[in-house]
């Protein structure tokens, strides 16, 4: 770690990367959904409560927020709150499945300043993508991308979660992004939300990860949200801060106003507080017990004797937690295979006890969009 990352690990006055999920409602049921979204929660923040959060973020000089969900555009007040953010100097980067980006909405988005769009696509063809995101979604996303291009939105981001099935399509993704003048963003698949079950079958293999590392190293312009820092143990670090930012530079506000350490740990163990508490979000960020604890030096645990610990910091907390490993164990995708060994040991000792999410808004099976099952045992 450098002097800067040491200081970042001790926490900041305000988060650098704040994810704010606006609703649990979603018209899709992606098999890897980090927030198990589907149904709207009856306690989701009202328009006025949303605006009060924006006011506080502006006061804390949070430069921009990463809006997600669920599908944020399903909120009837979506544009009203986006406009309010922009007015207050809080930039908006929002992730969408593209379903609501019709010609009219694309024009409206193109006319706004400080608004960036990340559109999700998880395969360069319908077969690969639709297996994860649902039938017909490939065509739907391409249509949304066409609308953004026709509206001269400018550079949007094409966002892909890397899986065993799509990681070898990276060159084709790069070409597709270039065709639209878009930026490519590849992120790590974590076993969060509905991914707790599907990750084991769908996460990239060790060999695929090493190839991905080399591919990314040669393309520093490809965005990764700093999510592959566990791969930096291979040698030259990937661009980015290369540390687990949970509660340090990153956090999540969920649709009902609960604050979690990162978007991938929607679990009571990682809930720091609520925006409804005294002092609101600022108090949670600045002085919650959980965030204070996360800003203390981490114990390298089982990784203490590994020469690469300084490069990867032991990897991703969420990934360890939801695969049933202790937080001081190696990352399940440790490039030296230590995580796989640790998982195998858990299995040999009676099986891993995998936590389940504390909040699940998945639609009941058989309702809503068809979900293509991934065979898991």
């Amino acid at each position, binding site marked *: 770690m450098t*002097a*800067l990352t040491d*200081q*970042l690990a*001790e*926490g*900041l*006055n*305000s988060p*650098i990367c704040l994810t704010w999920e606006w609703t649990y409602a979603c018209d899709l049921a992606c098999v890897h959904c980090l927030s198990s979204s589907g149904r709207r929660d009856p306690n989701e923040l009202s328009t006025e409560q949303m605006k009060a959060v924006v006011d506080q973020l502006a006061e804390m*000089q949070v*430069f*921009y927020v990463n809006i997600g969900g669920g599908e944020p555009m399903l909120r009837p007040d979506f544009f009203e709150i986006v406009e309010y953010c922009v007015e207050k*100097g809080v*930039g908006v980067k929002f992730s969408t499945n593209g379903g609501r980006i019709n010609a009219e909405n694309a024009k409206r988005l193109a006319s706004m300043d*400080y608004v*960036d769009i990340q559109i999700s696509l998880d395969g360069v063809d319908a077969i690969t993508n639709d297996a994860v995101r649902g039938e017909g979604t490939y065509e739907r996303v391409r249509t949304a991308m066409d609308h953004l291009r026709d509206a001269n939105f400018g550079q949007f981001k094409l966002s892909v979660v890397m899986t065993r099935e799509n990681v070898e399509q990276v060159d084709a993704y790069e070409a597709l992004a270039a065709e639209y003048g878009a930026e490519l963003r590849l992120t790590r698949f974590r076993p969060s939300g509905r991914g707790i079950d599907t990750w084991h079958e769908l996460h990239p293999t060790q060999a695929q990860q090493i190839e991905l590392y080399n591919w990314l190293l040669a393309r520093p312009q490809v965005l990764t949200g700093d999510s592959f820092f566990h791969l930096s143990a291979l040698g030259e670090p990937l661009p980015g801060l290369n540390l687990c930012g949970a509660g340090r530079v990153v956090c999540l506000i969920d649709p009902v106003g609960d604050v979690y350490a990162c978007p991938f740990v929607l679990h009571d163990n990682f809930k720091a507080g609520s925006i409804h508490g005294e002092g609101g979000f600022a108090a949670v960020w600045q002085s919650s017990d959980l965030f204070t604890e996360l800003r203390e030096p981490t114990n390298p645990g089982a990784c203490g004797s590994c020469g690469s610990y300084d490069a990867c910091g032991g990897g991703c907390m969420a990934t360890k937690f939801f695969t049933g490993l202790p937080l001081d164990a190696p990352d399940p995708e440790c490039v030296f295979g230590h995580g796989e060994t640790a998982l195998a040991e858990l299995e040999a000792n009676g099986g891993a006890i995998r936590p389940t999410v504390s909040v699940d808004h998945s639609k009941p099976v058989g309702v809503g969009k068809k979900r293509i099952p991934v065979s898991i045992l």
Partner: protein
Amino acid sequence: MTAVAFDANRPWRLHERVALRPEPFGALAYHYGNRRLTFLRSPDLVTLVESLNDQPSARAAFDAAGLDAKRWPSFEKALTSLAAGDFLVLENAA
């Protein structure tokens, strides 16, 4: 807009769309135009950057801030990188 190469003898100022947020290590700078985020890694650098606007040149700002001349090259390097990211622009730039 193409960034102009940094020259310590010319007058510089923060781009009007750049915001600084104080942090324990110095400050975070965010450019609302090109959406870049960068770290000002020491409180002295923050003071220096904030004072640029009132000085006829970057070099004059080094002097006015009372910075040890031995440290000037490292500050010059930091300012060069800020200018490359369009965080700093020439005084008379639009």
